[in-house]
């Protein structure tokens, strides 16, 4: 089997802004592929093109071997999509929503009942299947949407920010479902997220995206290994001075300022920590705290893009606000 998804110089331009810039990726069949990046990095635009919602400005791509422009209808039949924003009919019951989907995707009538029962069981909504969607919680709706995306047996499932605006327990649940669904149906999953932990927990491989381009692509563990070593977080009264001192001493620019703290990536953290204290004391910088830890994806992101993914959380708030607005209605 060739790659589940291949893109060749895939580009989408809005006026002069390149939302997706000459994207070249190959997603293996059967893997969970994470597309990680801050809001506005071009993740949603990229998968919108792969889902045939948007037409590329230039370049091509195939999904399950079908061209996303010339064979859009075949692509649509072979994929499942779970959107960032809710997309269920809240005046219908859970079961009715699933039947609608099955009919829209041409699932044979004789198989619909059995498939829908199985999906309801999988996402643990059997006992609520005949209640109107408006009585569901945010997490239940999300589970229903995940299940719905699988009714027509897609080969590739696209998940666009699947846990935005959900509480930690629900997110944990959703992650569990995504893994189970992937195992049970033997599908390829493409996941976009701006949550580091989500990408880390779920993905077999992660592509870090920024300004419409892939910055780096590898497995989560390899990505973390490339950073080699430890991360020291220093809080002090004069971060700027300390940052210059450490850079001068280490002879490289391995420091970043994140949330009013100095983060230093070094090979032998334990030995470096006392030296930093010394440097600070000699130069009248008062150190409030020192922390040593293993690098995480956040550090990887910082390393490759030079900025924190948390700097921009506008869209997350938007997602929350959207859900709250819905709850009021």
């Amino acid at each position, binding site marked *: 089997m060739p790659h589940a998804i291949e893109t060749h110089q895939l580009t989408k331009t809005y006026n002069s802004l390149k939302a997706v810039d000459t994207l070249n990726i190959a997603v293996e069949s059967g893997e969970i592929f994470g597309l990680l990046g801050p809001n506005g990095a071009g993740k949603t635009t990229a998968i919108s093109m792969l889902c045939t919602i948007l037409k590329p400005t230039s370049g091509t791509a195939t999904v399950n071997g079908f061209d996303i422009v010339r064979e859009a209808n075949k692509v*649509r039949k072979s994929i499942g*999509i779970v959107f960032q*924003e809710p997309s*269920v*009919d809240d005046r219908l019951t859970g079961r*009715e929503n699933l039947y609608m989907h099955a009919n*829209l995707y*041409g699932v044979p009538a004789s198989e619909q009942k059995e498939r829908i029962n199985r999906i309801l069981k999988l996402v643990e909504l059997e006992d609520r299947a005949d209640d109107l969607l408006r009585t569901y919680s945010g997490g239940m709706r999300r589970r229903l949407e995940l299940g719905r995306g699988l009714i027509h047996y897609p080969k590739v499932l696209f998940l666009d920010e699947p846990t935005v605006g959900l509480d930690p327990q629900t997110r944990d649940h959703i992650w569990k479902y995504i893994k189970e669904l992937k195992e049970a149906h033997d599908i390829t999953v493409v996941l976009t997220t701006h949550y580091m932990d989500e990408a880390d927990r779920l993905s077999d491989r992660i592509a870090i995206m920024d300004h419409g381009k892939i910055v780096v692509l590898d497995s989560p563990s390899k990505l973390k290994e490339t950073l080699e070593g430890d991360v020291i977080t220093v809080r002090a009264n004069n971060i700027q001075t300390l940052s210059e001192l450490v850079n001068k001493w280490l002879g490289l620019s391995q420091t970043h300022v994140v949330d009013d703290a100095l983060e230093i990536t070094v090979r032998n953290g334990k030995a470096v920590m006392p030296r930093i204290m010394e440097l600070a004391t000699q130069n009248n910088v008062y150190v409030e705290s020192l922390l040593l830890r293993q690098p995480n994806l956040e550090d990887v992101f910082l390393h490759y893009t030079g900025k924190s993914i948390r700097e921009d959380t506008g869209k997350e708030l938007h997602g929350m606000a959207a859900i709250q607005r819905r709850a009021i209605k």
Partner: protein
Amino acid sequence: MSELRGLYTLWLREIKRFMRDRTRLVSMFIQPLLWLVIFGAGFGLHFALPNLSYQQVIFPGIVGQTLLFTSMFMGISVLWDKEFGFMKEILVSPVSRLTIFLGKMIGDSTSSFLQGIMVFVIGIALQIPIDPVTVLYALPIMLLITFGLVSIGLTIASLIGTLESFGAIQTFINLPLFFLSGALFPLKGPGISLPSWLTTVATWNPLTYGVDALRSVVLGNAWGTSLQIQPLWIDIGIITLFDAIMIAIGTWAFTRMK
């Protein structure tokens, strides 16, 4: 085959949503009742047509008005679907845009049609002399009228973004179409002389022919050639042509929708 199933499922959804909307079910009684009872009694005082009471004349007009108002209102379903994100689920499915438009249109037309039937029930309850058999002839004409009108509502709703502007545009279209359709007064007949601009505008109003066709069927011989705008078959021809044009425009509008 799969397109037909898509059409059916989209139609069924509109019907289910309509049947579950209790406020709409109640309100569909009230409006025609007010028009027939209060307006019909008040304005009937100086109305003189041989063999016809004012209530009888406006009754088919109020059926047409109900079809117009409810059909146009159905456009709101597009805006709700956009607002709640469900439109995306439909638009990315493998079903064609023509099918999506037709499914929604026929579903909304059915709801509007059911509300039109309620007016007949009210009319009979008010003891307006209506031959029950004529109701059967009126039904297909009513359905035909709703197709074009629902298409207008859906087209406008898919082209504009917000609920507020939809409400404004709706009123702007509803009232002129209603007043200039002859729903509340005959447009021609012995002793009737209306300003010529009014009759000219009415000639270009599709609802004029809908109301005229309903009167021809419901009032029978009493609505003779001296009162008819056009013979029944020409009325039906014009409505069908209007439907075809509006369905084409509506499908185009849905194809553009993202």
